[in-house]
């Protein structure tokens, strides 16, 4: 893999600990995430991988009784000091289950720009087209932008959600198991799309499909019981894991 060590960092996480009530979900996580790469987070269910990416845009704070310690810097900015709304415009997110708004396709994509004060029709038209093209959906929906997004297939809905995230022109896209609710064909489409997106965006993707992580990511972090066991270039980790537990997980001995 390319020498990402020279790239500038998009995230720098130090000694991150997180509790849900009394349960500790993340333990002493310290990793640096380089820019414009695809980072896969793998690990068995309940290992804290979803919790981890939700700390990156502070979505985890929507859960009552959550407590965090340690520091997360997004491009040298301490995210605790950042305004959460502006952090989330720079760090987009795509969720496990497609969650389009109960609105037209057009309004779904225009929602982000609109709440941030962009109202003129011409700009919005452009943003909608550009974002849908970016999410490889334009050709399929350009004639029915006024239709409710709920009428689309699951895979198309997920691409609406990706387009919706692209519309506010983020630098980072967080993806929380974005293909787990999709069929293999839609999954392949999303994976192709991720491949395209990595040219312009930093992507951090949670997946419990190890083949997927191998296919799409530059680097992989293996989480287990709230800890990062190993974080390395994907190729290296899959061919030559340093930790026994990583080896066991990748070779399917548990998980």
């Amino acid at each position, binding site marked *: 893999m390319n020498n990402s060590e020279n790239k500038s960092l998009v995230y720098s996480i130090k000694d991150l600990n997180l509790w849900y009530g009394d349960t500790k979900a993340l333990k002493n996580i310290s990793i640096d995430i380089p820019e414009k790469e695809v980072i896969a987070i793998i690990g068995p269910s309940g290992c804290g991988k979803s919790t981890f990416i939700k700390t990156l845009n502070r979505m985890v704070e929507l859960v009552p009784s959550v407590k965090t310690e340690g520091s997360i810097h997004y491009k040298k900015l301490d995210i605790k000091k950042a305004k959460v709304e502006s952090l989330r415009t720079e760090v*987009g997110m795509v969720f496990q289950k497609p*969650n*389009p*708004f*109960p609105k037209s396709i057009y309004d779904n994509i225009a929602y982000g720009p609109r709440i941030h004060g962009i109202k003129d029709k011409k700009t919005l038209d452009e943003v909608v087209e550009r974002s849908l093209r970016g999410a490889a959906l334009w050709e399929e929906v350009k004639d029915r932008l006024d239709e409710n997004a709920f009428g689309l297939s699951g895979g198309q809905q997920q691409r609406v959600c990706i387009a919706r995230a692209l519309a506010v022109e983020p630098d980072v896209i967080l993806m929380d198991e974005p293909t787990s609710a999709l069929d293999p064909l839609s999954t392949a489409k999303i994976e192709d799309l991720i491949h395209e997106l990595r040219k312009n965006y930093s992507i951090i993707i949670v997946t419990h499909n190890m083949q997927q992580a191998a296919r799409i990511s530059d680097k992989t972090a293996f989480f287990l019981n709230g800890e990062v066991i190993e974080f390395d270039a994907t190729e290296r980790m899959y061919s030559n894991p340093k930790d026994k537990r990583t080896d066991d997980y990748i070779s399917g001995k548990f998980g």
Partner: protein
Amino acid sequence: MKITIRERIKKNKAKQSYQNTIEKAMPLLFFLMASLSILVTLGIIYTLLRETIMFFTHISLFDFITGTEWYPFFENNPSYGIWPLLSGTFTIAIIAMLVAVPIGLASAIYLSEYASDRSRRILKPILEVLAGVPTVVYGLFALTFVTPLMQTFVTDLPIFNALSPGIVVGIMIIPQITSLSQEAMNAVPQSVRDGAYALGATRLEVALKIVIPGSFSGIVSSLVLGLSRAIGETMIVSTAAGSTPNLGFTPTESIQTMTSYIVQVSMGDATFGSTIYYSIYAVGMTLFLFTLIMNILANHISRKYREVY
């Protein structure tokens, strides 16, 4: 000897003819019960219709729906124009909605979007107690508390007026609007809210631009149901609004609604078969039509805008 389960089941099956009869009889019973309420409704409509038709043999339908004066008690020259009663009814309904819509919706948004689980568990039952207060108590509240209070603001407010019963009818329908709207808002899945938060939306933006549009059908039908209750409300207006049929929007004067006219005549001694006697059915029919239209409207709106998550 040990009796196996299988043998016991066999034994029980022997009794089945009796069970079969019950199995067959019960659906019939349920059907009859369900038909009963439909039959009662039909019976009500029949009575209403029969007496209404009798009324229109005395007074022309045209005079009834175009007349602007309602003086049934004038011995020599009574007039039966429905408009003063309609305007009285809608004066009350408008004031009630002006009170209930903002308060009801704001409380629904608070309960659904802002309140913690704990405060929701405390506040919702308290709010629903309001729905259990008998309307006669609300009527007294309007007459003996709200009216004197209003008189400190509007000095020449008569003791019977449209303003205070209007406000109190509004208070009465708040719980219904809040409760139904909040349920509609709750039906918007958290994942949809998360999608908006992840785009940098604030709590208020999520509430106003995601949750309200997403639960629009439920909210509107709660409002229409509230309106139809306000139109049909009887006890509060009979107690506190007076009995002066007044055409126009006159909140600071005594008025009469359709319902309070019906009460007034029913309480008095209208001779059976007199025009006044039949008039309460014609008024009742009008009221029935209005609430029917409201309910059909609510149904239609909720079906048209319903989001299935």
